[in-house]
């Protein structure tokens, strides 16, 4: 197979494995080992996308993850992903890519007109233009701008692939698989240290794959392959290809993204698309390499203008030709290599333009003999051509301007170390004038930097730096690193003289290609007073978006420095934050999506409830049975009302397993309880249960529940479902922090016990049928508030509590969780002829409102025990948490909001929780607000709507009337304030 842009031989591609793909619907082919970018070049595609603001035609600038231009939409349907860098997409069979940010087509784009009015779209254009009228911003301007500016489209459908996270630990994490990284990893690994080498490429070797430099007398890529093979074979090494370390965090923690299956159309079954790694590394060696800087001259964004290093990557690694007639524009020695390599590949070299008059005559080697025009002390002032490069205008040392025809221009402004990861914990890179570039400053603890990332821009120095860092890390772990001889390599010439901006050409000179920021914009921003680099970034958007300014930051800062007439070192640089390259939200979520977003807790009675057709509701992490519909019932209210009537007239069973259960033992258990509850527990008799209220330190109610005493030194506490974890934590804090001297042992038994309430006049009769006969549960032997360990169903251990939330004769039965379903089923069977029914949260809620019991709506963090009518429980004989602050005058004021019952005057009217209490005849204003409705229910027992509420003055308002005003739902209902206990106010049914 041959194609226009493919060299007949060479490259690290597998010509035996052709690959079919498509771009903008056009079928094309490439080879295994290609990137999408190299395959596009092989197919003669140079126009790849349109720019963000001016919609200018753009090609491929780089050959790596720094690419600002060649952003494409990958894949189709639910897998579609925008803004993918064609330069780092590994080619696969069936790959579909579309150009983006163009309409109607890539070749003809309407919004390219923006380019013609470019003068208006200068720095801060949006801020300046779309200011008035302010109301227009959200409704008119922003949607318009977003439509015009959008880079690509998201899939708009659920991602069909799965993502996951993983953890890894190592002695040494080597970041980057170029010569320095490979050498560091090899040295550390041979010492026996646990090593992880993470490389973002699919082929280890870094620049060795893109250059023709030799190591040990053979191609550098062969050395890289040999080292990678040795590393792969070592049990103490994890070689992670396609893995980008994108963040550094506290505690020597690193985040990495492994693109497990980005290089196939659909991940194999059960494999993730991507995997997010959290890597714990005792030491890290950053060998991330360097990024080449573009040169800033007019129309430097034309397709065909490419970084010189990228030109070498395409020729040497991918065996593709970015053009037939190449010119080179450089301010450093390294740029010349592009001309040398291209000439060796048979590409016609039209010219080499070095801005340095003093550039060494030795540079270029044989080029002179090939009749190549060589300019020293000259500059390319303008690129000519629109959708593709046609020529360049060169101003030579004497100032004469000539035009040179070419279809590709390799440019090199020198290389900047990739210092990003060194800044993630705040380290500020420092300016090195000789490079000239920023080099790492203060490093994250445990990190060292080697190779080009540390400013060592030549091969032999990189290898030596890698070996030394690997050996030093090994020694830190007490391992001896054998002084393996360094592989033989040369240091290539690497002198450079900065060239930040070439002026004089007609047309925009781009600094940031992705955001269409020009040298002029930087100048304008500076003149408008945006003199700090941070402000420059935000005002011009220089360095934002997917590439985070990888190719633009240093040029931008340098131009700003020149405008301000300050040294670059003084102007400084913005600090990089994670992530180094974009990370998909899917990878961050991993397994935790859909039902797995967080763990769901299932009650030990879950199966039982399911069997009875329960409708479940999420309640915190729990799924709780809400009601149990029967055929013909039209809504939850009908079902719940029927369940209430069953409990009030016969017997019902409900699941209360989700309540927190805490086992408290030890000689000082009673003392602890006395201090955490506002009422007294040390006096509770063995075998008895008591309702308790806990206050926060500030005097407000924290939680309530019953606590029972099973033995002198053994209590069992229950908490509300919502506070189960919080109360355990509170008790642990009290014990460990406040009173470590108490001999008390606490442990959560929430998971151990299934607990169910059996309530109703026939509850005793039902229970008696399953309780083992030696346990007498008659009213005399087992009166209200008795709590005892018993056995049921022939020896199953259980705890029986005669307590009632419903207001009926009722029990709570706790059994080991494993038998929860079976016991509930046995009770249902035992009570069949007595009319037993399962009941859910809704019925429970109705009955507690009928009884005036407070729950989460009333214990809302703003109410005191007095507010809730529980003031008498506050002991005056002992100290307890919250006692002092509960006595603050405002908390004891007679006009505080207190708990009352509310009955609509018209008994048929439905009332709503949340309605405010307003005096009759008064305006509905905040000033007239007396309180609000906290809970409402339709009481099947009273056959009317009832409510609980908080009203200023509390019980003193009994018998008065107020309006329940709900401005949101538009209701205004007159109601009578009454005692909150609507049903069986004397509590006679409890004792039945």
């Amino acid at each position, binding site marked *: 197979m041959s194609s226009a842009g493919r060299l007949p031989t060479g490259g690290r591609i597998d010509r035996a494995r052709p690959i079919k793909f498509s771009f903008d619907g056009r079928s094309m082919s490439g080879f295994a080992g290609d990137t999408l970018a190299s395959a596009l070049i092989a197919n003669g595609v140079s126009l790849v996308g349109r720019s963000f603001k001016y919609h200018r035609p753009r090609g491929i600038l780089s050959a790596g993850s720094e690419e600002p231009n060649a952003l494409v939409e990958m894949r189709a349907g639910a897998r579609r992903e925008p803004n993918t860098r064609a330069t780092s997409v590994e080619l696969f069979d069936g790959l579909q890519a579309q150009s983006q940010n163009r309409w109607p087509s890539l070749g003809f784009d309407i919004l390219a007109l923006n380019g013609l009015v470019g003068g208006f779209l200068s720095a801060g254009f949006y801020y300046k233009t779309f200011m008035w009228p302010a109301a227009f911003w959200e409704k008119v301007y922003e949607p318009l701008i977003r439509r015009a500016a959008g880079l690509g489209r998201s899939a708009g459908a659920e991602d069909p692939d799965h993502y*996951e996270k993983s953890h890894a630990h190592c002695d040494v994490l080597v970041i980057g698989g170029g010569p320095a990284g490979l050498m560091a990893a090899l040295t550390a690994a041979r010492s026996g240290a646990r090593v992880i080498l993470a490389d973002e490429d699919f082929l280890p070797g870094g620049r060795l794959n893109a250059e023709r430099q030799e190591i040990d007398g053979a191609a550098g890529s062969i050395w890289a392959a040999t080292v990678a093979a040795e590393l792969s074979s070592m049990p103490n090494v994890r070689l992670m290809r396609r893995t980008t370390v994108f963040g550094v965090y506290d505690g020597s923690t690193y985040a990495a993204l492994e693109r497990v299956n980005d290089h196939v159309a659909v991940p194999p079954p059960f494999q993730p698309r991507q995997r997010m790694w959290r890597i714990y590394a005792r030491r890290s060696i950053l060998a991330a390499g360097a990024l080449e800087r573009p040169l800033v001259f007019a129309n430097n964004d034309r397709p065909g203008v490419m970084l010189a290093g990228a030109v070498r990557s395409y020729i040497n690694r991918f065996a593709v030709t970015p053009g037939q007639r190449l010119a080179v524009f450089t301010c450093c020695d390294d740029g010349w290599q592009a001309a040398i390599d291209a000439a060796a590949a048979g590409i016609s070299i039209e010219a080499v333009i070095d801005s340095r008059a003093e550039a060494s005559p030795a540079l270029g080697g044989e080029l002179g003999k090939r009749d190549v025009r060589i300019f020293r002390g000259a500059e390319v002032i303008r690129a000519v051509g629109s959708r593709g490069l046609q020529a360049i205008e060169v101003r030579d040392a004497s100032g004469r301007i000539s035009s040179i025809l070419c279809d590709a221009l390799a440019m090199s402004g020198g290389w900047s170390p990739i210092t990003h990861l060194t800044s993630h914990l705040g380290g500020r890179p420092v300016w090195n004038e000789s490079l000239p570039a920023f080099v790492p400053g203060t490093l994250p603890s445990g990190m060292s930097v080697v190779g080009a990332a540390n400013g060592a821009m030549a091969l032999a120095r990189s290898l030596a730096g890698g070996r030394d860092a690997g050996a030093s890390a090994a020694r830190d772990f007490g391992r001896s690193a054998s002084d393996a001889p360094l592989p033989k390599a040369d240091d290539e010439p690497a002198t450079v003289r900065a060239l930040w901006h070439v002026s004089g050409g007609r047309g925009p000179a781009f600094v940031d290609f992705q955001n269409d920021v020009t040298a002029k914009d930087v100048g304008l921003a500076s003149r408008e007073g945006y003199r700090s680099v941070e402000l420059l970034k935000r005002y011009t958007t220089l360095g934002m978006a997917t590439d985070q300014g990888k190719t633009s930051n240093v040029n931008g800062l340098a131009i700003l420095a020149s405008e301000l007439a300050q040294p670059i070192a003084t102007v400084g640089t913005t600090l990089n934050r994670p992530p180094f390259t974009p990370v998909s939200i899917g990878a961050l979520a991993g397994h935790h999506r859909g039902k*797995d977003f967080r763990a*769901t807790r299932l*009650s030990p009675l879950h199966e039982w409830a399911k069997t009875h057709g329960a409708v479940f509701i999420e309640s915190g992490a729990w799924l709780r049975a809400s009601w149990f519909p029967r055929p013909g019932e039209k809504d939850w209210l009908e079902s719940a009302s029927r369940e209430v009537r069953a409990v009030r007239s016969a017997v019902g069973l409900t699941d209360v397993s989700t309540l927190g259960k805490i086992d408290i033992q*030890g000689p000082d258990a009673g003392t602890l309880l006395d201090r955490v509850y506002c009422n007294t527990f040390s006096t509770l008799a063995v075998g008895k249960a008591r309702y308790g209220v806990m206050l926060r330190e500030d005097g407000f109610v924290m939680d309530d529940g019953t606590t029972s005493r099973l033995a002198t030194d053994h209590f069992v506490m229950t908490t509300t479902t919502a506070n189960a974890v919080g109360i355990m934590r509170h008790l642990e804090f009290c014990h460990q922090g406040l009173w470590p001297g108490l001999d008390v*042992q606490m442990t959560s038994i929430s998971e151990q016990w299934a607990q169910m309430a059996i309530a109703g006049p026939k509850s005793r009769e039902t229970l008696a049928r399953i309780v083992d006969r030696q346990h007498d549960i008659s009213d005399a032997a087992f009166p209200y508030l008795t709590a005892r360990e018993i056995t049921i169903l*022939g020896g199953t251990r259980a705890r029986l509590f005669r307590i009632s939330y419903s207001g009926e004769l009722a029990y709570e039965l706790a059994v080991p969780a494993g038998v929860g379903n079976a016991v509930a089923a046995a009770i249902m069977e035992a009570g069949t002829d007595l009319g037993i029914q399962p009941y859910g949260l809704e019925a429970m809620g109705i009955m507690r409102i009928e009884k005036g019991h407070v729950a989460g709506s009333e214990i809302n963090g703003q109410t005191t025990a007095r507010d809730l009518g529980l003031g008498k429980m506050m002991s005056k004989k002992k100290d307890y948490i919250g006692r002092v602050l509960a006595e603050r005058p405002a908390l004891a004021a007679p006009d505080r909001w207190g708990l009352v019952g509310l009955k609509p005057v018209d008994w048929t009217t439905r009332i709503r929780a949340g309605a405010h209490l307003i005096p009759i005849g008064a305006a509905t204003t905040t000033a007239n607000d007396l309180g609000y409705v906290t809970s409402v229910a339709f009481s099947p027992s009273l056959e009317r709507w009832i409510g609980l509420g908080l009203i200023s003055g509390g019980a003193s308002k009994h018998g008065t009337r107020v309006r329940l005003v709900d401005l949101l739902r538009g209701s205004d209902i007159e109601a009578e304030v009454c005692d909150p206990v609507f049903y069986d106010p004397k509590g006679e049914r409890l004792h039945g």
Partner: protein
Amino acid sequence: MADRKIASRSALAGLAKSGALGVSKGVPGVRIREITDFAAIGIIARRGRAAEVAAILSRHVGSPVVDAAKRAGAGAVSITGTAPGQWLAISRGPGTSLDELRTELAGLAAVTDQGDGRLIIEVTGPRARDALAKGVAIDLDAGVFKVGDAAQTSAAHIGLQIAPIDEAPTFEIISARSTAASFWSWLESSAAEYGIDVA
């Protein structure tokens, strides 16, 4: 009323059906077994009595029990340190009980039944570490997390106790009953690419 025998239901009952899951070619990389017959008690030493409790536990299990995150016991009974002065004792086997130990500890420690609130599984196989690393953040390497070690950690936001119990490696994982379904969902999804055999 006649005595009726009622069946206990394990935490993964109905979830982890025995057989193959995930990738089905070759030897499964991960084998998972739920331990269904066991008793467990939580033990917290009374103030100042941790050493005496540890001594009794050592005698009971037949190897030294220390007040640290370690797991002692190679047979049916194991004891794992879960917090300062606290241990979880587990006895495996049908009809097993820890009542004898409970009696010995009377007055020295607070003992609570915990077996019904727990899920116990064993995860083994050549890819067990890789699968578990997808949720467990601690270092599971053979040279770091050794037989006899134990840790309280979490996976997929679910708390768990983990210990390597042999060098296969086999990991014993103990977690809460209520989150067993969510835990299983994570484990199955994490191990599927290696092939799973559920005992």
